[in-house]
């Protein structure tokens, strides 16, 4: 006669099964959660890298100036090419072309939207309007520190028609060069890192999911941990900056906030002007 299981044996085996199944289910659920969170975290990291690279490459160009003439050298000699913007961002100025660089042949000012240019030493001789082109941006500045950014509508052999006249009055001989003026800021409502083209005022989203950005400015490139300077006091002394961006948590907080800091020392702000 076959003997069956006792009640105690049944209860013990049931308890063992429940414990084992519970442990397995716990592992499976934890694994599922990791599988959901990790791709999101990796994606956040990669988007962060792309955004920081775009930001750092632009900021690294800050201050690149003319390649010839009496105003050759970094823009920082004449005006601040890295400045905090009123909306909490950072604005950078740089001359982007080695060829489209000239000087004004006549005066320009708030009522004059047509710039007459005289080629300078780097202006390609065979090129109309010194290689300036419609639809590009031009930076206008003089030795007094006055500077404007303008959008080119049309060009002729010797003139540039800009969309709006400059704010300053510029004398003959003031510098004109193709360049870029860009502001990086965070649109808190849209939670986006945004790049604004200051010549057109057009915003271009760079990255979604950015909550905040703050920038510290330094006048020292040697010390590892220098004290920030107040850019309102001496904006032309800025040599280095540290931007911190906070990337928003996602998946209901499963992927936490990511805070990333990047130091950028734009080479044109620290050029040793004279090598002896």
């Amino acid at each position, binding site marked *: 006669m076959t003997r069956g299981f006792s009640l105690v044996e049944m209860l013990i085996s049931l308890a063992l099964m429940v414990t084992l199944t519970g442990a397995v289910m716990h592992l499976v659920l934890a*694994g599922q959660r990791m599988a959901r969170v990790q791709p999101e975290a990796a994606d956040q990291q990669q988007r962060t890298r792309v955004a920081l690279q775009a930001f750092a490459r632009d900021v690294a160009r800050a201050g690149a100036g003319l390649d010839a003439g009496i105003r050759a050298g970094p823009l920082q000699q004449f005006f601040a090419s890295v400045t905090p913007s009123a909306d909490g961002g950072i604005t950078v100025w740089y001359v982007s072309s*080695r060829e489209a660089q000239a000087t004004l042949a006549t005066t320009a000012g708030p009522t004059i939207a047509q710039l007459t240019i005289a080629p300078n030493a780097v202006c390609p001789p065979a090129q109309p309007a010194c290689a300036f082109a419609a639809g590009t941006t031009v930076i206008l500045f003089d030795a007094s520190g006055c500077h404007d950014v303008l959008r080119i509508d049309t060009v002729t052999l010797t003139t540039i028609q800009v969309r709006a006249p400059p704010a300053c009055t510029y004398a003959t001989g003031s510098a004109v060069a193709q360049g870029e003026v860009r502001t990086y800021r965070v649109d808190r409502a849209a939670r986006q890192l945004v790049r604004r083209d200051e010549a057109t005022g057009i915003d271009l989203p760079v990255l979604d999911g950015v909550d905040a950005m703050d920038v510290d400015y330094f006048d020292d490139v040697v010390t590892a941990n220098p004290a920030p300077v107040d850019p309102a006091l001496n904006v032309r002394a800025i040599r280095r900056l540290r931007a911190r961006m906070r990337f928003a948590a996602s998946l209901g907080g499963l992927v936490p906030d990511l805070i990333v800091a990047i130091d950028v020392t734009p080479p*044109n702000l620290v050029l040793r002007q004279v090598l002896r």
Partner: protein
Amino acid sequence: MPLLTALFATALLMALGLALALLGMGETTLAARDRDARAAEYAARAATALGAAELRLLPSWSVVLRPGTPSELAGVSARVTDSSLTPAAPWGGTLDLRALTSQLQAETDAAGVPGDAMAWRLFAYAPLSRFVPGPASSRLYLVVWVSDDRADGDHDPSADTNGSIVIHAEALGSDGLRTAVEATIQRVPVTGGGPDVVRLLSVRPRP
């Protein structure tokens, strides 16, 4: 039934583990590439500065702009150069510096910018560890070319008449890593004699 549950759970966990491991490896690779690209940017910038420092020692830049032997070489080379134009790359294999020079020249010519023609000459080329001796290990190779600027106006890429030349520096790494920076430098005679001073006018990372 418990056996099936255990087998199923094991298979599921293995699949999840494998996916996470692959994701982790991908993430590590991306992070390494990002780090290497940043290092290469700094190295290219440093090569520009080193090239300028070497050039300032020369009394005239026309001697550098003249073709050497072979013609890809500058008439006078920097102190840091490899012994061959097909040197061993720090990451394995060999580099063909003549082909790189031809490629840079072709890219410059294709840009079609008016003005004087530019002719790139190899000025300095060596692994980063030779440019910056020290314990830090780096697998980057640095190349510095020089060319007359387009605004020279003499239509002779082998002679510098306006005192300005262009430096093109690249940092090369494994898996096609290549970062370039260009700088314009100018020599200014000193009133009352003495060696010219050299000004770094602009530094522009190349896209």
